[in-house]
Every structure is written in structure tokens, then in C-alpha cells.
């Protein structure tokens, strides 16, 4: 008697393998990165005043890249955990949640939220929705080169879903970039100019897909980007 493996089972197994892989890789990768960081500090320390300026500069670059790698590993870990973490279901007032997300930003005043009335309150994965809001809002203002980024938030009701849209007036992005922004570690601006590793929207997409929704990005009339995603009314 042979085993009959359904495509669904196979898919589930593949998914699980992938998540385990990402978890193990990211864990075991952290140790050498930390070692590189520490060793560069110690080399500098041991050379003391003898250290030539260009060597010191290179050491700083080395640590900067090590830190970027650490951030990427952390992001990979978060990405791999989407399907198995933050599964608590609670009642979420999305209007309140948006304000909480804004308040937790490094510079809350750099974002002006224009929220349309009638944002829903419903039972869902609160922590996941918060993560989605956080990534979308941080993304808009990290890449905006202006003192205050305005983000218009609206919700439409659809059959079984809410459709949230976040329209920003940041500098926008070229049409060909719109699809790529959901790829892990893709950034529109060079990674040297912004302090990001380009994982926020990839994680966002994975969360939205996990709950059965869809996400897309488009250019808007304010010259910025509008991110739209659907989220189920009930789980």
C-alpha cells in the first residue's frame, strides 16, 4: 500500500519546511554577524591611537553593513513567523489603532493622518493588523523627503471584506517599481540613503495573504503612492 499525498498536504509540508528553514538560517546567521561586529570593534580598540583615519572609516563601514545584515536577518525571521505568530483574536477599533500606530512612530509629527469617518471596529488578528498599518505608514514617511507626509486613510465595505486604502503624498515611485516593492529586501531608494532593509512591505503582503486578503500599490493624483488591501470582516 503506497502513500497518497494530496497536493494540499504537499503544499502544507513545503510551507512548513520553508518556515523552519528561514527560522534556522536566521538564527544561526546571527552569531557570525555579531562576531564580525565585535571583532571590528576590538581591532579598533587594540590599535588605539595608532589607527589610520581611512582604516577607522572602513571599520565603521564594516559595522554599518554588519548591522544591516542583522536587520535583514531579523526581517527574515519576522517574515518566516507570519503564519505562526500573533494569532490572538481581539476586538479592534481601527480608528484608535491608527492613532496608536502613529504615536509609536519615531517622529509622530512627521505624519499627518487624514482619516475618513466610519472606520470599522471588528474582531480580528489585532497584532497582525497593527503590523500592517505600521509597515504601510512607516514606509510612506521613511521614503518621503518632506517634513510632513500626509496619508489619507479610507475604508470601503465589500462582500466579506473591508478594503483599506492608504494614499500618501510622498515622492511616489516609478510604475515599474510598484510590483517589486512587495519583494523581500527590495528598496526603491539605495539602501545607503535610507535606514531600511526593504522588508516591511514583503512582510505586510505575507500577513495580508495569510488572512486571505490582497494588496496592491498604485500611483495617485497627489504624486505619491496608494496602497490598498482587503481584510476579511470575519475570520
Amino acid at each position, binding site marked *: 500500500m503506497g502513500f497518497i499525498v494530496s497536493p494540499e498536504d504537499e503544499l502544507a509540508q513545503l510551507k512548513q519546511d520553508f518556515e523552519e528553514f528561514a527560522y534556522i538560517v536566521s*538564527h544561526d546567521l546571527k552569531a557570525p554577524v555579531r562576531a564580525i561586529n565585535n571583532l571590528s570593534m576590538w581591532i579598533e580598540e587594540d590599535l588605539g591611537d595608532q589607527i589610520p583615519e581611512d582604516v577607522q572609516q572602513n571599520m565603521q563601514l564594516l559595522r554599518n553593513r554588519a548591522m544591516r545584515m542583522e536587520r535583514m536577518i531579523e526581517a527574515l525571521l519576522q517574515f518566516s513567523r507570519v503564519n505562526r505568530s500573533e494569532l490572538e483574536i481581539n476586538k479592534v477599533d481601527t480608528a484608535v489603532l491608527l492613532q496608536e500606530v502613529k504615536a509609536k512612530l519615531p517622529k509622530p509629527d512627521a505624519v499627518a493622518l487624514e482619516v475618513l469617518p466610519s472606520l470599522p471596529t471588528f474582531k480580528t488578528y489585532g497584532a497582525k493588523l497593527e503590523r500592517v498599518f505600521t509597515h504601510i505608514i512607516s514606509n510612506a514617511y521613511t521614503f518621503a523627503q518632506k517634513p510632513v507626509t500626509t496619508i489619507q486613510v479610507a475604508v470601503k465595505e465589500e462582500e466579506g471584506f473591508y478594503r483599506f486604502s492608504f494614499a500618501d503624498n510622498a515622492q511616489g515611485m516609478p510604475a515599474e517599481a510598484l510590483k517589486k516593492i512587495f519583494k523581500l529586501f527590495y528598496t526603491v531608494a539605495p539602501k545607503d540613503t535610507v535606514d531600511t532593509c526593504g522588508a516591511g512591505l514583503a512582510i505586510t503582503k505575507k500577513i495580508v495573504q495569510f488572512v486571505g486578503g490582497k494588496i496592491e500599490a498604485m500611483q495617485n493624483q497627489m504624486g505619491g503612492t496608494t496602497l490598498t488591501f482587503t481584510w476579511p470582516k470575519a475570520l
Partner: protein
Amino acid sequence: MSEKLVNVLLVEDDEVDIMNVQRAFKKNSITNPLFIARNGLEALEMLRTEQVPFPHIIILDINMPKMNGLEFLKEVRDDEKLKSASVFVMTTSNEDSDKLKAYNLNVAGYILKPLSFEKFISSVATLNSYWKLCERP
């Protein structure tokens, strides 16, 4: 009155992480004797043969070859002579399951290895003042 220095057993397999602790001790002028075991088995052997004199505390990594930190902890808690040991976990594992398992085995603390050496120095300084405060049998 002379202050009796507690012996520190570091259970760690990574050479650089060992140097990390040694450097942090030096930076904080911590003069406690430092013993090093490269995995849980080696650590058990050192404790059971009394190579690490009492009083002692243990700084424990989780991911290690041969016998990992949690397996080692379980052995320690099951051993009549060793079970009262203060153990501080120092690891890269930010997994809730690891934290829970460690606290269920009565660890004195669970510390995440920070990326920066400065932060590590200050965590070791805090540990030092903490274990100085603690009374031991």
C-alpha cells in the same frame, strides 16, 4: 572582611562569544575567576568533578553542540548536588518557547546577546552587581 568572589562558569561554544565575555569582564574590572566549558557535557563534567569551586554561577548559551543549554539545565536540576545553581541564560534565541523552557527550569535570568559590544558590557556590569548582591549558602 574579605569578599568571597563567586566563580563564574561560562558554557559557550563560540570562540568570539567567549572573548566577548572575557573582554566585558576586563572592561568592567570584574575579577571573578572565569571557567569555560564548550558544551553542556563538558560543563556537567567540570561541575561534577568540582573543577569549579563553590560558590558559583553559570552563564549558559542555548545553541551548542553535543548537549545544548536546555538539556544541560535539565541535568543540573535533576542532580541533587547541582540543582541549586544560579544559571543565567545568555543567548541569541529570541524564541518564546526557549524562554519559557528556561524559566521553567528556574533560571535566574534570560538575556539576549546584543549586537553591540557596548550594550553587552553594560549587561555584564548589571549582572555583576546583581550577583554581588545575592547571598549564597
